[in-house]
């Protein structure tokens, strides 16, 4: 659910989230915002700190009295205090405008995963078992060990399996994990990852879609 008073941002945020297969509800009238939010029973709230009729901070405090729905605060104040405060009022995370859409999506995903407790270190896809914390992939044939970069790339591809993932998305995720690699390194990492998958003799492979990105099939 999106609580945002700027129509342009609201609609585009909605588009972005829907494209990434989330169901989105937006609040268009901010009167009685609290009741409307509680009625909706959404899984996650994206809340602008600065909305009409009520301050975002008070709203969070009110919501927290009745619900523990995960909240990501969206702020455009470049102000450390607001953010520190919004966390202390009970928001789960915050992001400052203008935000990097890929990072926003990543934050949403992390929070949902944490809250819904379906966060599992081991992900099974077809015949592979991927262990994120150990950084290994195994199947009946053998087990291979991935480097940190390969783990980040593979887990992102896996969470977008059978979808095209652009190189820029991968780059953003890697840089957000303090792996400041360049284009060549990404290419090298992908081809190493491919080789390791081949070693496993699995049907799962990474395809290149020219000038669009990669896809895990």
């Amino acid at each position, binding site marked *: 659910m999106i609580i945002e008073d*700027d129509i*342009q*941002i609201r609609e*585009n*945020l909605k*588009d*972005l989230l829907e494209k990434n297969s989330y169901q989105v509800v937006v609040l268009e009238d901010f009167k009685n915002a609290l009741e409307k939010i509680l009625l909706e029973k959404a899984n996650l709230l994206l809340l602008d700190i600065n909305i009409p009729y009520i301050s975002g901070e008070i709203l969070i405090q009110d919501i927290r009295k009745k619900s523990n729905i995960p909240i990501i605060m969206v702020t*455009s*104040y*470049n*102000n*450390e*205090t607001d953010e*520190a405060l919004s966390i202390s009022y009970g928001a789960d995370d915050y992001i400052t*405008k*203008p*935000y*990097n*859409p*890929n*990072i926003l999506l990543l934050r949403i995903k992390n929070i949902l995963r944490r809250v819904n407790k379906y966060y599992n270190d081991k992900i099974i896809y077809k015949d592979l078992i991927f262990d994120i914390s150990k950084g290994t992939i195994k199947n009946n044939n053998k087990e291979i060990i991935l480097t940190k970069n390969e783990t980040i790339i593979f887990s992102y591809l896996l969470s977008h399996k059978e979808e095209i993932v*652009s190189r*820029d998305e991968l*780059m*953003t995720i890697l*840089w*957000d994990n*303090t792996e*400041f690699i*360049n*284009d060549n390194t990404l290419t090298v990492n992908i081809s190493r990852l491919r080789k390791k998958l081949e070693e496993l003799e699995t049907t799962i492979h990474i395809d290149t879609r020219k000038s669009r990105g990669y896809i895990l099939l």
Partner: protein
Amino acid sequence: MRLKYYLIDKIYFIIIFLSSYLLITLILLAFKQEVLIIPISIILLVSLISLLLIDYFRKRKFYTDLLENINYLDKAYIVLETLNRPSFYEGKLLYDAFYKINKSMNENIKVKEEQFVNTKEYIEMWIHEVKKPIATLSLVLNKAPRKTKNIIKNLEDYVDQVLYYTRSENAEKDYFIKEVDLSSVIKNVGVRNMDDLLLNKIDFKVDKITSLVYTDMKWLEFIINQIINNCIKYKKKENSYIKIYVLEDSNKTDLVIEDNGIGIPDIDIKRVFDKTFTGSNGINRRTSTGMGLYIAKNLCQRLGHNISIISEENLYTKVIISFGKSKYFEVLK
């Protein structure tokens, strides 16, 4: 207030008094009243000296305090608050005039201050508003090519520069100092400049940094962003890199941002932190405003960090930000 100058100032008074005395003596001589000369002389001279001394000491306290306090106060304009209204007439006139001048100046300053605060508020509000369409753009153009996304980043940088300029010029304390993980600040700046760095084929080499420093996270992000922008702007054509590392010693943490760009000529290096200074490098580049480092230095001063720059032309530029390890913050913990 010195007696010597006081007497010099009263010279006409003294001359007229002495000439009258001389005249009186002559008149007494003319009327053959010699016996009166001595007592009259004593009376007149005693009254001259006491008149001068009484007047001098009445004024001395007021003027001495006034002059001393002006020198001693760091804000000389509040001197009137430290003085009592004097008892002599000229002093009263002066005191009252000062009071009126002060009041009118204060009113004038207040008007200017209000204008300044209004402008600042308007700018902050405007930036708040302009960030909305920028946010929308970055949402819409999420899948756009790097070059396009980089234009949005540039736009954002310019907007931020205005915001931090107004903040740095303003005496209000709108920062918030707490313990900050240096590596997360660098990560944010890195992600923000990712497209620009990749487009320019600049290797971004960051050491493993574990230092915690006391600073305002957003301000520091802006400062480092300015420096990285300069590294990108003044890079060499090939094999460019930016290295970021930390040097620690017992009383400070130095963050070093080093590039192998075109460097800064010796004649310019002392002036790089000056307002609107662009130097010979900047003149050749359209986008140089000469504001980035000036604002960065200003913000560093406000936060209590030291910022310095060393460079050799055509070889390297190193910007060093030093964070003190203050006992004060240790106590706060």
